[in-house]
């Protein structure tokens, strides 16, 4: 028996009037995978997620979620997936318990089963406050965790998280990602968008979107390798005078790309021999160190580089 793909998109296109938010995008996600979706704002990430959750109909192309397509409307898909949108997903003026109550009634869960699931999920997120706490009184990080628990109440196979950690403290983000990895380990497929590159490192595979198109899809390591086949160097200027050379270096034939990172610069040489030749002269002005490319380097190279 061949394994059913968790998510399958073939030539997915979504148009709003004349504007194509998603253009001819194809990818697959395997069950149990943490699939990261990266891109600048307006790149089409949220639109794609909305299609996969059955909230938007694709204009063209085929979408299958948990092996189910749109043939019988969006309801069968909605039953399979959990969705945590980037906006409010809980009611501020209801308590945690009341929010769970409403979610379980929306999903028509049996009250006994819903109560058991709720307890499991609250244990899972280590929720220790009283259940009659109003959601508006919860700190941001905790609110996101309760949101996640509410999205998991009906035990979906596939969970879509749209920027789940936006505006949350670093400690709370780390905690949230620990939960995401635990979920994936328990067999759930996680489809997550984020703006934080350190979070993207946790993903099994990453899809990069730019103005509606899928421009790269690979594991974080694979992306780094394919984007920066040659090693990457960090240049720290020794003096203000050295900074003045930067525009000139950008035009240097030995250098493929040069990006500013705070007070330092990341350089990708065009080829090893050329770089070796240029190196002694550069050492006068810069401290040079060989570094591993980060996902941020990849992101800047692929997403922002393409806009030039």
């Amino acid at each position: 028996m061949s394994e059913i793909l968790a998510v399958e998109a073939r030539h997915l296109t979504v148009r709003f009037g004349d504007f194509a938010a998603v253009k001819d995008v194809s990818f697959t996600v395997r069950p149990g995978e943490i699939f990261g979706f990266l891109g600048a704002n307006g790149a089409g990430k949220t639109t794609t997620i909305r299609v996969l959750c059955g909230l938007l109909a694709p204009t063209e192309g085929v979408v299958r979620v948990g092996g189910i397509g749109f043939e019988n409307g969006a309801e069968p898909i909605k039953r399979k997936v959990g969705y945590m949108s980037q906006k409010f997903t809980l009611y501020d003026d209801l308590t945690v318990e009341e929010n769970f109550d409403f979610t379980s009634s929306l999903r028509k869960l049996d009250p006994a089963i819903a109560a058991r699931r709720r307890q499991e999920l609250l244990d899972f997120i280590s929720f220790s406050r009283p259940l009659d706490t109003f959601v508006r009184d919860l700190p941001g990080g905790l609110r996101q965790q309760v949101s996640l628990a509410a999205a998991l109440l009906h035990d979906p196979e596939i969970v879509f998280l749209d920027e789940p950690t936006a505006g949350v403290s670093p400690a709370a983000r780390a905690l949230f990602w620990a939960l995401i990895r635990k979920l994936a380990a328990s067999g759930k497929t996680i489809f997550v968008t984020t703006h934080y590159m350190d979070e993207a490192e946790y993903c099994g595979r990453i899809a990069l979107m730019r103005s509606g198109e899928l421009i790269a899809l690979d594991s974080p390591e694979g992306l780094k390798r394919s984007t920066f086949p040659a090693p990457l160097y960090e240049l720290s200027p020794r003096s203000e005078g050295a900074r003045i050379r930067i525009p000139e270096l950008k035009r240097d034939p030995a250098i493929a790309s040069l990006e500013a990172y705070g007070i330092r610069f990341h350089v990708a040489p065009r080829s090893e021999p050329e770089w070796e030749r240029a190196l002694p002269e550069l050492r006068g002005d810069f401290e040079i160190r060989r570094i591993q490319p980060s996902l941020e380097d990849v992101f800047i190279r692929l997403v922002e580089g393409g806009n030039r």
Partner: protein
Amino acid sequence: MNRTLQGFLRKEFRQTLRDPRMRLLLFVAPIIQLSIFGVALSTETRNVRLAVAPPGIVERDPLLREIHDKSLASGWFLPAKTPVSDPFEAIRAGRVDAVLVPPPGGLTRAVARGDGQLQLLLDATNVTRAQGVERYLRTIAATVGAAQTLVSGGVALGTPPPLQFDVRILFNPTMRTAVFMVPGVMSMLVCLLTIILTSMSLTKEKETGTFETLISAPVTATEVILGKTIPFVLLGISNIPLILAAGILLFDLPMRGSLALLAFAALVFVICTVGIGIFISTIARNQQQSMMGGFLFLFPATMLSGMMFPIENIPDFLRWLAYLNPLTYFIEILRNILLKGGSPELVLRNIGILALMAFFTIGGSLRRFRTRL
């Protein structure tokens, strides 16, 4: 009942009744508004400042004095605070509303001569008020004149006309405006409350983003529409006894018909207005838009409902709007049941029309509503 609908019911009740502003809007505001409207929107002419010019003439002219005293005794008039020598100037300055000016030599003597011309100067910047004053003074002068005829046998001021109406004022014998206004205001308040509350509820969810989560669950359009209407129908209906009791206690509103019939009519009316509210929220994207939509409906609806101005007075090209207006039918039902004891024919016909309107507004919402973005 469907589990999803039960969930909606619990949620909407909790959210609405928990919010102190909502509680105020639901249970206190209607009473305050009803009192203000009922008292202020009186079309009765009262507190008319009446003067007689020139000053001091009243004491020397018994007939004029009788008219003046009877006027003040009627309760509609107040004596002018300052003596009026120039009636035009006094009216222009707004010191008085009406001035009686007897003919030279006094009214008593003029009547004795058979020439009972009493001049009445009226401030007609407010036409309704001026007409009211004129009507009152005519009546008073006529009674004084008739008495005079009997007493002196002389020629009366204003000979009694050969044909007289025997007028009986039915259902509101004292012609109290409140009795006419309060049912209208009651309907308007229920309408306002339900439309605003309902339309804001769904658009608030669209605005905050909870709507997206809501429809990411496999719910049907019918479940969402009913889940968002039933709670507000119940909340709206809970307002009826409150407003009705306020009307009866504060304004002596008679309750001559069947309470059950009234309750049933109110239920159908509330379903209809909640339907309008939910229809607005299928169009509006945020709370501001639904507020605008609500008022866009409410203003013409209150004007063209017969609440204040009779529908018969509305020009033809606008009158069809009054016939498409649920308020028109409910106000008619309320007045009919409260004042006339309820004619089953009229009440049931209007309930039927309201039910039809409810069917169209809720049906229209169902057609428009999508469980997609």
